[in-house]
């Protein structure tokens, strides 16, 4: 029951409330994560110009040089060199390119496949839905990493194969989420109106369903970017990822792990830091997008 006191108390609330909300909204934008992702992207694009050395060729006389601020380090190799005398900084810079390309392409492959199957499954229903969802269930029951390793063992290592492997490993998450969304969308009046206006199923899916699920797909994509990059690093670490001469962050971690015991910390800490920053940034940006694009949360 509303007491008179409640009614009187209400009008004083809104201005302050609104101001607080507005502040949160603006302050919410993840500036630092976005900046980090932007820097990594730029570094990936201009790797050729930025890298001081060739990332794949080193000189054995220059092995295990520490970063410049430690004794024995030199300004020529800012972050030191690895066991083959290759410049760690240059390898990190080119590794950003591998991580970005693999991450974004794999998310795209997974997103396109998953969204399409999700829409088909949710909109057509019936046996199409049954078939797609049972495949999805089976897929989800497989341990993702083991499955990815298995696939990698079959198709062999190459950067583009990793993209495909990660795509076929992770499409199921899209299919599930998008199907759920479509199930509620297809009962919406504007979809019915399109049906009674004589539009075909295909044009309804393309014109009315797809644009309405794109938001969710984008949000999911930004969250999946982190997962995909971690998996790529894990595959590289396990030796079934990007093949050795190419500088992938996960591969660098793997190569440096023996060195860690004898004090060559820079071989693992720097690539590890890069992976962590990128995944963290992707997740924070994804969280923000999710809140921003979800109409229910947006109203808050």
């Amino acid at each position: 029951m509303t007491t008179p006191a409640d009614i009187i108390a209400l009008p004083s609330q809104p201005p302050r409330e609104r101001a607080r909300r507005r502040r949160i909204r603006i302050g919410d934008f993840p500036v630092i994560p976005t900046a980090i992702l932007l820097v990594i992207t730029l570094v990936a694009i201009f790797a050729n110009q930025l890298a001081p050395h060739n990332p794949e060729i080193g000189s054995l006389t220059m092995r295990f040089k520490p970063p410049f601020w430690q004794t024995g380090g030199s300004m020529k190799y800012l972050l030191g060199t690895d066991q083959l005398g290759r410049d760690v900084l240059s390898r990190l810079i080119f590794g950003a390119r591998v991580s970005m390309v693999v991450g974004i392409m794999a998310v795209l492959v997974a997103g396109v496949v998953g969204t399409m199957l999700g829409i088909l499954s949710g909109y057509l229903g019936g046996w199409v839905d049954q078939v797609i969802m049972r495949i999805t269930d089976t897929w989800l029951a497989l341990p993702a990493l083991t499955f990815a390793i298995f696939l990698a063992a079959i198709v062999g290592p190459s950067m583009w194969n990793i993209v495909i492997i990660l795509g076929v490993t992770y499409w199921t998450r899209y299919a599930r989420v998008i199907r759920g969304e479509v199930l509620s969308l297809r009962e919406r009046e504007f979809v019915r109106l399109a049906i009674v206006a004589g539009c075909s199923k295909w044009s309804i899916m393309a014109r009315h369903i797809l644009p309405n699920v794109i938001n969710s797909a984008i949000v999911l994509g930004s969250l999946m970017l982190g997962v995909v990059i971690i998996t790529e690093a894990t595959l590289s670490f396990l030796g079934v990822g990007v093949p050795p001469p190419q500088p992938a962050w996960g591969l660098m971690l793997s190569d440096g792990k023996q060195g860690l015991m004898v004090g060559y910390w820079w071989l693992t800490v720097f690539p590890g830091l890069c992976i962590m920053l990128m995944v963290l940034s992707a997740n924070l940006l994804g969280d923000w997008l999710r809140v921003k694009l979800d109409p229910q949360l947006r109203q808050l």
Partner: protein
Amino acid sequence: MAGEPLLRLDKLSTHYIAGGGLRVVRAVDEVSLTVNAGETLGIVGESGSGKSTLALTMMRVLPMAAKIVGGHMWFEGEDLVQKTDAEMREIRGKRIAMVLQDPMASLNPLFTIGNQIAEPIQVHEKVSRATAWERARALLKAVRIPSPETRVRQFPHEMSGGMRQRIVGAIGMSCEPRLLIADEPTTSLDLTIQAQYLNLLRDLQREHGLALIFITHNLGIVAKMCDQLAVMYAGRLVESGPVSRVFNAPQHPYTKALLNSIPRMGDRDHRLTAIAGQPPDLSALPRGCAFAQRCPQAFDRCRAEAPPPVSYPAPGQTARCWLVEDAPAEAVPVLAGAAV
């Protein structure tokens, strides 16, 4: 009224079949109706009486569980029941259009108004985008949207409820259909907007010689808009005929009860009469007349045997009741149409 009517439903039945045939809901049961070109038919009945299912049946856009189990729908000489899905798509939106229950939600929030009005035109008439948009602007003008030039480029959230409603109407009219089915098109609007919209529909109908089927539970709208009236109860058509006849001389006890339960301005002496009881479960209909349990005049025969599909108490009027043959039409109390 010579010649074949525009639409003639002949013992049309649509059932929802669940549990592999164990549970059958007779949502539309042997409904026969006719609609002539340029005429307005009102279909009334309480919630769950099968009105909306009947509308969906006429468009052939039933949910998966529902099946047309019998009867015919003759539309301009063709039986819509026999049409393939592809053929129906040609008809939907082009020759039979529909305005849905909640026009507020009928527009896709992501597309401009012009886009959505032009869509059925492009689908059905294979005209260029520019032509379709030109037509969209003309339609907005026809449904009295001010400054159509700018409105056509705006999004649904920039419109008021009444405007969105008229836009949905414009989409319905976009391919100049012969028949427009409006399923409770005004329930979500306030009264003044309702009246505007009804006037608009009537003007459009006159200009284009359009036949209208109005599905509603508002008898006031029926009185204002319709030439013919059909009353549905538990999936069956209990009474139909010209509005003036059904209002002034209702034959079926259900129609009488329905008309009696309308509140009347200035009547302070009587309590509002309601129809006692609940409509029957459509999956377990009684053996006899579906209304028998609630009917004040029911007798043994009503409970044992369903009344025949049609009797003819007066020309053009039909009712499904055992009493009708005996009831002289003039003995029925007069209910003025203006009062509802």
